[in-house]
């Protein structure tokens, strides 16, 4: 996200950053699908299982997002290639930085709102059925409704931004033909 164009700066993301990007990216897409699917089911043991799995996965995503954020803050990502940086209109740079910033904010906001919703609904989150997470929100029907709406809204916002992110990556790949995507692809130096 920094726009430094030092010649010595790396041209690819680090392996850890690449692994976290793809694991969390696929996890978020899977979670959106699971979330949309499970909320439509009527109450059954199967549905309860899915809800628990969704919560466990959410806890794992939250933890990995923290690792990802710390990694991002301590490891400078590769700068955009200088010609690209110069050719980019101002609004695109703004969109580029803004989207990434919003994505990172939502990596935390979405799982945290889900956790709060679960607590408010009277179902404390117990990771893997063994490790109880604290409730930061009291049990309350009105709070539960609020966090449910918040969780869904934030999740769909995240989904929208992921689509923008993918569209931008594909635009670079297929329209601009600039190979920018190589920076984030595994195993291709």
């Amino acid at each position, binding site marked *: 996200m920094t726009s430094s164009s030092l010649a010595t700066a790396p041209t690819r993301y680090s392996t850890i950053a690449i692994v976290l990007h793809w694991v969390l990216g696929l996890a978020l897409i899977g979670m959106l699908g699971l979330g949309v699917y499970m909320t439509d089911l009527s109450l059954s*043991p199967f549905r309860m*299982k899915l809800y*628990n799995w969704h919560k466990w996965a959410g806890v794992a995503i939250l933890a990995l997002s923290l690792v990802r954020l710390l990694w991002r803050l301590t490891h400078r990502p590769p700068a955009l290639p200088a010609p690209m940086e110069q050719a980019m209109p101002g609004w695109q740079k703004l969109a580029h930085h803004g989207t990434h910033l919003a994505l990172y904010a939502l990596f935390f906001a979405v799982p945290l709102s889900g956790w709060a919703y679960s607590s408010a609904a009277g179902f404390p*989150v117990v990771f893997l059925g063994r490790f*109880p997470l604290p409730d930061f929100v009291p049990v309350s029907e009105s709070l539960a409704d609020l966090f449910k709406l918040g969780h869904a809204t934030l999740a769909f916002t995240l989904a929208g931004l992921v689509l923008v992110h993918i569209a931008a990556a594909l635009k670079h790949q297929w329209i601009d033909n600039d190979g920018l995507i190589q920076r984030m692809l595994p195993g291709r130096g």
Partner: protein
Amino acid sequence: MQKTTVLHGLALASTLLLAALPAQAQQQLVPAQSSIEFTARQMGVPMQGQFRKFDAQVAFDPAQLATSRIRFTVDTGSVTMGARETDAELPKAAWFNVPQFPQATFESSAIKALGGGKFDVAGKLTIKGSTVQVSLPVSLSQSGATTTATGTLPIKRLAFKIGDGEWADTSMVADEVQVKFKLALTGVGKL
């Protein structure tokens, strides 16, 4: 002279009756200070619930445990776990089957003092048409005119077919449910 004896006898009998009856009539449940709650577990997640409506008929005399009786009835339709969705599900046939079994009851058969305000109340617990012999640990505490009986009874929900059919899977909803009760009574004699 004979007449007098009969009268005496009647007077004595009624005195005994009066002595025995008020002891029962005076013990009243204070619903506002009483609660019947339970904790079930689904995939390790504790879930709290409670019954909003219940009543108790208590004839309890700490000095006369042999004749003491405790009976309480719980309206199964008053069950709530705090969420609309579960509350809509619990009265159904797989859970409490409220239309067919609107009440759960406990009826004591023997009360044993364990000392220190603790009692063991043996009796029959009937839920959803199934009766199980249970032993209820009860602690009594007195404050002013109110005597509060508290205790926790672990029950096996499947013994009563609570959560039948697809819900019988105990890896999903654990078999053991902790029932926690607090009954506030007025009119109990000094412990």
